[in-house]
């Protein structure tokens, strides 16, 4: 486990080191260079830290089980739900896409039976649609429901 954490940690660090090398060669560079140097120096400091055995303590929280290992399946399902929103929001509109997002996310997190989160999601999605477009004057696409007076 510690090895895995170290591996991913190295990856994270590598990406911070790559950042300065992508500094563009034209235009104002002083500040980006300073940031780049800062990132490289801290990543080195972290390596030293890690070599001495000070690994990072994962953050604690109300709903976090500190002893649990990372549940990749759930994260993937959540990513899928979110991707669905990104793809669907323009063609199908916010109400439908958000229903999919909420339903999918809650289901991935363990809400059963499947229709309950979908129902809650639909209520939430339509409420926010009406609230945002009617009360707050902000744009949200209504999709095929375009033309329904209180949604657009």
């Amino acid at each position, binding site marked *: 486990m510690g090895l895995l954490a170290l591996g991913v940690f190295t990856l994270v660090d590598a990406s*911070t080191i790559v950042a300065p090398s992508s500094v563009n060669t034209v235009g104002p560079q002083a500040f980006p260079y300073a940031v780049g140097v800062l990132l490289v120096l801290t*990543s080195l400091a972290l390596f030293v830290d890690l070599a001495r055995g000070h690994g990072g303590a994962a953050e604690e929280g109300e709903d976090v089980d500190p002893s649990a290992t*990372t549940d990749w399946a*759930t994260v993937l399902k959540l990513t899928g739900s979110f991707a669905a929103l990104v793809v669907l929001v323009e063609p199908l509109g916010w109400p439908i896409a958000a229903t999919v*997002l909420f339903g999918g*996310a*809650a*289901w991935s997190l363990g809400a059963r039976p499947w229709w309950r989160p979908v129902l809650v999601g639909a209520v939430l999605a339509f409420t926010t649609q009406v609230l945002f477009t009617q009360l*707050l004057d902000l744009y949200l696409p209504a999709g095929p429901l375009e033309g329904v007076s209180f949604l657009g």
Partner: protein
Amino acid sequence: MGDFGALLDGFATALQPMYLLYALIGVTLGTAVGVLPGIGPAMTLALLLPLTYSLEPTAAFIMFAGIYYGGMYGGSTTSILLNAPGESSSIITALEGNRMAKAGRGSAALATAAIGSFVAGTIATVALTLVAPTIARLAVQLGPADYVALLVLAFLTVAAVLGSSPPRGIASLGIGLFLGLVGTDTLTGQQRFTLGLPALADGIDVVVVAVGVFAVGEALYVASRMRRGPIPLVPAGKGWMTKDDWRRSWKPWLRGTAIGFPIGTLPAGGAEVGTFLSYSAERKLSKHREEFGKGAIEGVAGPEAANNASAAGVLVPLLTLGLPTSATAAILISAFQSYGIQPGPLLFQDESALIWALIASLYIGNVLLLVLNLPLVGIWVKLLQIPRPYLYAGILTFAALGSYSVGASTEDLVLLFLLGLLGWAMRNFGFPIAPAVVGLILGPIAEEQLRRALAISQGDPTVLVTSPFAAVVYAALVVFLFLGWWLRRRQARTEAELAAVVATPAESERSSS
């Protein structure tokens, strides 16, 4: 006296029924969202920011003030009834408050937290009213080099004090600074780090970053290691503060305020440090020391007061210098910026009416919170019982809603999720999130001031340290870093003491009898 008149004008504005309504909405929403487990004040603000997009500035800021105080307050209810603090500044409240709740004195704990927050919030707002205009008047004379010094000070203290270790804090700051670089350079029009994507040319919207790393990151993090099973909620219980509770509470309230406000104004990491200091002070001074660790009311009253007092203290450097010293303050700044208002020394001159209305609404918000919270505890308890899958699905949905409504672009949604993955990774590996947000906001300001200072001096870097003010700031920086280190050590010691107290209740009982 001019300030006093301006404050009265502010009240005249903020007390208009329409603005009162906005304050009420802000306080209610802020508390409601702040109560939800897993959501700290910074995330509350970030999630609710979109609601104010279509409002005119005064209404929006009055609502922010309410959300800010409400979100701060909401956390204490969560920690008393759920024993699992959402933000680090509520750890202490969770410790003593939750034990009180388990002993059936939950409502007394909630009451002392609410009234203590009110007392501390009001006194600290008075202090803010007195101190801020004076600082602003002094700050007007600062040049670009002085600003660079102040920003360096803010960067280093925020990175060093927030989070578990300085290198991690600075790494997080660096990530934020980098994100702040993305976009078109304001002085030359050069695109930087945009990867040729037009969506990145305008830079990354602060709301998208904040909501991404805080809200989406948190949802992913919780999802990846969720605590299954029933929610360990303690009922609030019946009863009210007894005479004895009052007698034991009022001094901690005042001491907590006295500790919290100055610490909030320093760039020393916001509310958290103050609560720990207040707790250890109360423990030392208490006549009921044996109760600490088992539900001592002083241990709720003092730290809660310190927490709220420092929330007001944080506003001092924010409004007068444009320096956010906590993640919450950084998001407040971005709210200001979205209205084209740059917090800083000129704010009290240029936007006088707006600022005084904001300060007046802080007073009003405090009163509303007190009125609202005592009777509405029942509703907040219901909110705590939302099944977790629905709660985090809801957070994701509102995060998406907020970012999408900024610019109605799906690129923002993709970006939001990528930043969420970043926030998740940072949490997983113990990197603090707050310095990244502070770096993102302050980075561009620092760069501009730095380049302006160097332009004036025609490239001579010594100008950065030769201004007397800047020299003083760099000297202060050394002192602050030392002070911060000392405070952390105190905090670590308090934590160790706490652990000892909690681990051996039987022993301390024996020794006390």
